[in-house]
């Protein structure tokens, strides 16, 4: 059996393409509008789908009459999903769907559907745990060590309440699809993070083989964890296309998108944390509760105290609260931003109680983390970029004047090992190179990454590589969840391209009369190692294939990946924030954020930095503006819009400094996903910076003027 080719990444110093900042290949297409998203697809004869949702948070459908809608001219399909007797569990839940020749007719048809409800009692707010009654479910206590004894013996104990509300994903491109069912064949254009896997939902719903469902999505406008399944609207659009024989386009409108297409669970917490005089944490106790909607809010409370998980004495309790609201979905680092916010806030409060610089305190306790050396390095780097020593002051000691400046910090961790991925590389006799895999580019730069890796392997320019993704007829690659994509696709691409190159070497070896393992591909040439003049151009090499092409697969199997070393999991990053707070108005302005982030081997520093910029902006939104607001009286979301569901604009984000932690020791661990780890600590860092600026903790984010002023009032009271 021949030896396996050497798949290892080229050594850090010898890479020609990887590791060099590169513009994303589709940047121009995206910014000029040339890129066609699934929501831009308008096949001939297409119908517009629309959905009717429940206005009640909890109700039983007693009758539903669609006859008037069906009779409306231009309506081609009407489907009821909440038949009489169905119990509706949130306002915004799907009741019926229509498809019509125009969007307007579809909307008119919805208004003709008559639904009678028996309205039932509801609960839509979870912040006050004393009011949730039987809707709260304690998930059991976890105790390690002897927290009570440790609290008694501690030099300082800090107690605090912290809260972070439900957020929604706010994808710029809403959830939905255009879908055409013809006989037993489906052309499916979804907006999805799961190009390969999503076909299964449609195949199952229509009872046809999944291989007959062709998924195509070249570009997508944001998912953040909320776009894996086909969803009810996908299945119903498929069924309406099947019954009408026409393509159906159905994308959620903004209100529906914010109400029913997923959310990030809230977390409210009562925390007690203790330390020795020197800042060593000795004990942690947290009682938390949360909701993600009707399914409750199962927080992974075992993550407390976040990153410092080896604190010896811990008592952790959590209550999951079910409310009548749409269900949670993964949201960029599920659990982590909330647990990070609660932990880092409590630790900053403890540091303030000890009159300690929180940076010093975090450093003091790094042995409680699993990556002490990494964090030590990153905090030093971040402190340098933030000029922490010069700019930090003890809590509240920010001088006279009504604008107070403060600094805060936080840290995060994530897995991010590569998912299962297969890739096919073809070298044609005309020397064109195609790389195919059924992955998706969520906007993070996957397409560019694949091209760069292939270019590196073949010694070709990036422009010589044709990348084909976003189509499930290509080899299987996993859904983009858990920051697993970069690790998965980089590894499968590497292996596939190396395998293809190996085949090309075998052909070239014969004509040069050297062993194949003596060849290398450099600067557009296949040549003999150590004898660069002996060789031929890549073009000439490919011509030797005659009429045949080379097609080789490559696979990343997560089980073998740790041995192979192309990708791995386990990242760390730290964030620091510099804010100014006007204590007359309670308005917080971002001055600067610093993020230092490790993600192993960085294939494209430019798109990696972009990922972190985006994460910092999301952190500003979550810290200062975003929250889903529910009204208990009407059981509905009050702000399912871009007017009062507030997001930062460009003038609100301040300066963002990103430092990718690219070092030999990180690089040697292989590629690690980046999407989630950088989106964790920013919010906590901002909240801590505000506490530092104004001298008092604002317990609940977002840090609105109302909450900041209320906290200031409590300070002076």
């Amino acid at each position, binding site marked *: 059996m021949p030896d396996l080719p050497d798949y290892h990444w080229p050594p850090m110093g010898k890479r020609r393409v990887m590791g060099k900042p590169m513009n994303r290949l589709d940047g121009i297409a995206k910014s000029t509008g040339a890129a066609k998203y699934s929501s831009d697809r308008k096949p001939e004869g297409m119908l517009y789908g629309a959905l009717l949702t429940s206005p009640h948070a909890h109700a039983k459908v007693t009758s539903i009459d669609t006859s008037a809608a069906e009779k409306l001219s231009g309506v081609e399909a009407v489907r009821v999903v909440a038949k009489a007797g169905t119990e509706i569990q949130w306002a915004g839940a799907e009741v019926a769907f229509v498809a019509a020749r125009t969007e*307007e007719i579809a*909307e008119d048809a919805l*208004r003709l559907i008559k639904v009678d409800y028996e309205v039932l009692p509801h609960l839509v707010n979870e912040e006050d745990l004393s009011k949730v009654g039987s809707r709260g479910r304690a998930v059991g206590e976890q105790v390690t060590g002897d927290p009570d004894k440790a609290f008694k013996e501690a030099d300082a104990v800090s107690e605090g309440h912290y809260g972070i509300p439900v957020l929604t994903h706010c994808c710029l491109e809403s959830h939905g699809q255009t879908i055409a069912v013809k006989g037993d064949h489906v052309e499916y254009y979804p907006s999805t993070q799961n190009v390969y896997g999503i076909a299964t939902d449609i195949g199952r719903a229509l009872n046809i083989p999944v291989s007959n469902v062709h998924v195509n999505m070249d570009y997508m406008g944001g998912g953040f964890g909320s776009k894996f399944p086909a969803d009810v609207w996908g299945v119903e659009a498929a069924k309406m296309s099947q019954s009408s024989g026409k393509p159906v386009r159905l994308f959620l409108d903004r209100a529906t998108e914010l109400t029913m297409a997923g959310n990030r669970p809230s977390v409210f917490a009562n925390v007690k944390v203790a330390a020795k005089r020197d800042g060593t944490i000795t004990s942690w106790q947290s009682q938390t509760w949360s909701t993600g909607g009707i399914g409750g809010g199962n927080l992974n409370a075992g993550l407390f105290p976040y990153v410092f998980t080896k604190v010896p004495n811990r008592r952790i309790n959590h209550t999951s609260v079910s409310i009548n609201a749409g269900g949670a979905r993964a949201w960029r680092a599920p659990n982590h931003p909330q647990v990070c916010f609660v932990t880092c806030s409590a630790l900053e409060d403890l540091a303030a109680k000890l009159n300690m610089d929180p940076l010093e305190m975090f450093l003091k306790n790094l042995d409680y983390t699993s990556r002490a050396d990494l964090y030590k390095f990153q905090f030093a780097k971040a402190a340098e970029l933030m000029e922490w020593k010069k700019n930090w002051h003890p809590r509240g000691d920010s001088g006279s004047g009504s604008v107070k400046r403060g600094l805060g910090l936080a840290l995060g961790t994530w897995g991010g090992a590569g998912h299962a991925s297969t890739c096919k590389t073809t070298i044609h006799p005309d020397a064109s190179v195609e790389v195919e895999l059924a992955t998706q580019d969520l906007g993070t730069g996957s397409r560019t990454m694949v091209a760069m890796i292939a270019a590196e392997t073949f010694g070709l320019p990036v422009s010589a590589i044709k990348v084909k993704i976003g189509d499930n007829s290509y080899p299987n690659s996993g859904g983009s969840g858990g920051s697993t994509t970069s690790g998965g696709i980089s590894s499968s691409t590497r292996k596939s391209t190396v395998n293809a190159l190996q085949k090309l070497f075998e052909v070239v070896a014969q004509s040069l009369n050297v062993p194949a393992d003596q060849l290398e591909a450099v600067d557009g040439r296949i040549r003999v190692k150590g004898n660069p003049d002996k060789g031929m151009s890549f073009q000439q090499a490919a011509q030797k294939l005659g009429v045949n092409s080379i097609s080789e697969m490559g696979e990343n199997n997560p089980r073998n990946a740790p041995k192979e070393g192309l990708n791995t999991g386990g990242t760390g990053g730290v964030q620091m924030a510099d804010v100014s707070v006007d204590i*007359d*108005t*309670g*308005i917080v302005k971002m001055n600067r954020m610093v993020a230092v982030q490790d993600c192993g081997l960085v294939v494209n520093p430019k798109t990696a930095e972009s990922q972190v910029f985006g994460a910092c902006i999301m952190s500003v939104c979550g810290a*200062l*503006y975003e929250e889903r*607001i529910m*009204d*208990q*009286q*009407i059981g*509905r979301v*009050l*702000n399912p819009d871009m*007017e*009062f569901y*507030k*997001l*930062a*604009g*460009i*003038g*609100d984000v301040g300066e963002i400094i990103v430092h990718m932690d690219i070092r030999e020791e990180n690089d040697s661990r292989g590629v690690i996903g980046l999407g989630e780890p950088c989106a964790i600590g920013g919010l906590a860092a901002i909240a801590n910076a505000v506490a530092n600026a104004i001298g008092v903790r604002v317990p609940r984010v977002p840090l*609105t*003027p*109302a909450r900041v*002023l*209320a906290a200031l009032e409590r300070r002076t009271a």
Partner: protein
Amino acid sequence: MQPFEYANPSTLQEALALLGSRWGEADVLAGGTDQISLMKEFLHTPKRVVNIKGIKELGGIHHSSQGLRIGATVTFDELASNQAAHSEYPSLVQAVMGISSPQMRNMGTVGGDLCQRPRCWYFRRGFGLLAMQNGKSLVPSGDNRYHAIFGGGPAYFVSPSSLGPALVSLGAKVKLVSASGSRTVAVEKFFVAPQNESSRETALLPNEILTEIEIPLARGIKNATYEVRQKEALDWPLAAASVALSMKGNVVSKSWVVLGHVAPTPWPATAASQALDGNPLNDETIAKAAEAAVAGAQPLSENGYKVQLTRVAVKRALLEASAKA
């Protein structure tokens, strides 16, 4: 959106003939930044929509010895770019620039700013101006973080108008024209706090068009607007104040202080004016005026913070006005 007849008249008389005698018959369309969303949400379901952007006489800004006349279809951007507005009515320009979206400033009109409907989230969800459910307002026991702290109900929404407070403080009037004639109404009287669900929040009648705004000459009157907004990006003010000061040396001879986004109408803070009149404009007087401005506030469960923001708006508007030579 409900189907409607669309009319595109080129003269005011044609437009007036197309209006109805009751709300719901015809709506006037200018910039459309609010009208279109009202229609899409079925909050307005007019049988006819009358576009007035093509009517020349409703445009233009004229500066004369009488003051400033601003046509109803003048856009925010046109107003903000007007030299006379800049030099004499900075208060107006500051209010316009508070609409921190170039798209809104390019499309939105000054007439539309006065006639737009409230942003109250209960109103926008279909519960009416008074936000009633089962005979009771949803606001006092609901989420009222953005609602009124003055007026005491039954209407709790806040007037969304950006220009209203400044126009009231400058003693401006609006011209309301119907097929049978025209009337001139002080902007202060144009805004009305509705007492029941069937009344509107302005004096405009269904058969009338707001054709122009007239602002008296502001010679020597210092004026300024200060809005407290959380975001730099487009965001509604949480509180605002417009001030106009007639000065003798450093002494305020007569003042007008009008609050915005804290009541169903632009809210004249007469107590604040009284605290200023006859007194030198200094930190002490300004602090007294700011305190007087909120003396009658009746905050709801979630909007007590707006009392403080109102104080700040008054104080900063006065400081801004006094800084101008």
